[in-house]
């Protein structure tokens, strides 16, 4: 059901763990499936993400997207990190089953939440960044029969 890349990131998740003094940390949850993701970012004085770490309570797709997201944002500027959308994460993982698309939103939102925390702490404004939501609503509509 999952691609090889997803399985690889699920079995050997990169960057699992916590961070002592993160530049930003964000926790998001998904009301529908009850899963939770926490993302830690270490951002240097030039606004470059040096490292990202995560902890996730969630399905295989949630773990894999968290892992992939941490890899994708590392080395990017804060502004570039905003472009690591759920679509980008999914593509990097060679896709997800339709029913699991929403899981990748968790990763996107977790990045945004951590960046927001960083922005708040440093009193800066990141172009295009919205305040984090507590609950990720279901974005796709399910087919009705």
């Amino acid at each position: 059901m999952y691609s090889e890349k997803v399985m690889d990131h699920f079995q050997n998740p990169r960057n699992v763990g916590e961070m002592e003094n993160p530049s930003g940390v964000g926790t998001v949850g998904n009301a529908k499936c009850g899963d939770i993701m926490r993302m830690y970012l270490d951002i240097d004085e030039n606004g470059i993400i040096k490292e990202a770490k995560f902890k996730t309570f969630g399905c295989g797709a949630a773990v894999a997207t968290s892992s992939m997201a941490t890899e994708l944002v590392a080395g990017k500027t804060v502004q570039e990190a905003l472009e690591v959308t759920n679509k980008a994460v999914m593509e990097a993982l060679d896709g997800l089953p339709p029913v699991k698309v929403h899981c990748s939103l968790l990763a996107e939102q977790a990045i945004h939440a951590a960046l927001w925390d960083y922005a708040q702490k440093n009193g800066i404004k990141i172009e295009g960044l919205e305040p984090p939501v507590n609950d990720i609503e279901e974005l796709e509509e399910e087919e009705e029969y």
Partner: protein
Amino acid sequence: MKEFVYLDNAATTKVRPEVVEAMLPYFTEIYGNASAVYDFGQKCKQAIEDARETIGSSIGTKASNIYFTAGGSESDNWALKGVAEAYKDKGKHIITTKIEHHAILHTCAYLEQQGYEVTYLDVDADGLVSPEDVKKAIRPDTILISVMFANNEIGTIEPIEEIGAIAHEHGILFHTDAVQAYAQVPIDVEKMHIDLLSASGHKLNGPKGIGFLYIRQGLKLKSFIHGGAQERKRRAGTENVPGIVGLDKAVEIAMATMDERIKKESELRDYLIARIEDEIPFAKLNGHRVKRLPNNINFCFRFIEGESMLIMLDMAGICGSSGSACTSGSLDPSHVLLAIGLPHEIAHGSLRLTLSDEITKEQLDYVVDHLKEIVAKLRSMSPLYED
């Protein structure tokens, strides 16, 4: 070393070789139309009637009260919609429980759209329905009580005989979804006051695509699949003779081995439960400890999520399930676990392991060893653990 341990027997089972053997001639040799005049078709008819006999006597009733269907879901749909329609002049109220299979719950939701009222009874923390609650829910317009014999997720066996007695005291029909319980524990439709009973072949090492509905003699029930005159005009469709013959054989074996299986599986079940409780922290057994299907083990492991657990178990060759079989493609937490009072996050971390009579203690040791590691690994990733 990687083993293969199939512990999803509540979802579906391996067909016994004897069952396949019994079916084979009916594919390529005795394939005539069972409703035909020619002798070749009468052989099929005889095979069907023999199966009806075996099944009737397995639940203490006459052969003629057994009607073949395509499985448990069809039987459930037929029982509920058939009664609803036949008795709508008497009333439009149905009583069921919050922990029924979706084949019951979604059919009830459909009936609600059609103007019926459904009372969904609560269960206690072990998943037991209280006969007292059933009695209280009865209204003058109640036409049907439907309570499952045993729950498919947590294995709890309901007080069917008491509930049946209450139904009959009040002149109300009583249906039980016995898809999980049939041929696993003794059932007597007379003693237990059961008017309608659903069962499915593939849950007892029989074929998929075949099941039956027991209908008490004399009970009016509208047809669900209309058409040809098969099944004494009550269920249309060319008879699935190989399926019926396979079911016959599966029931015969299941009934003959029931006592022995109950003993063996209960012991293994309790062994696995004990090892998990002793060796894995924050593990909660779901379902009643004693009033429980012999083959059902269901735990919640706090701080972790079910699907991740299943994938990791699968990597070790262990097949289990989380939530109900039919909905493990779904994201909703199990309605059964919510009904026994678990909060969402905990309900998400459930694991159901269901035994067959082929499982050995060594295999269960293998399972526990892997499960311990998997739970530990997932907890180390969880933002909820030691937080």
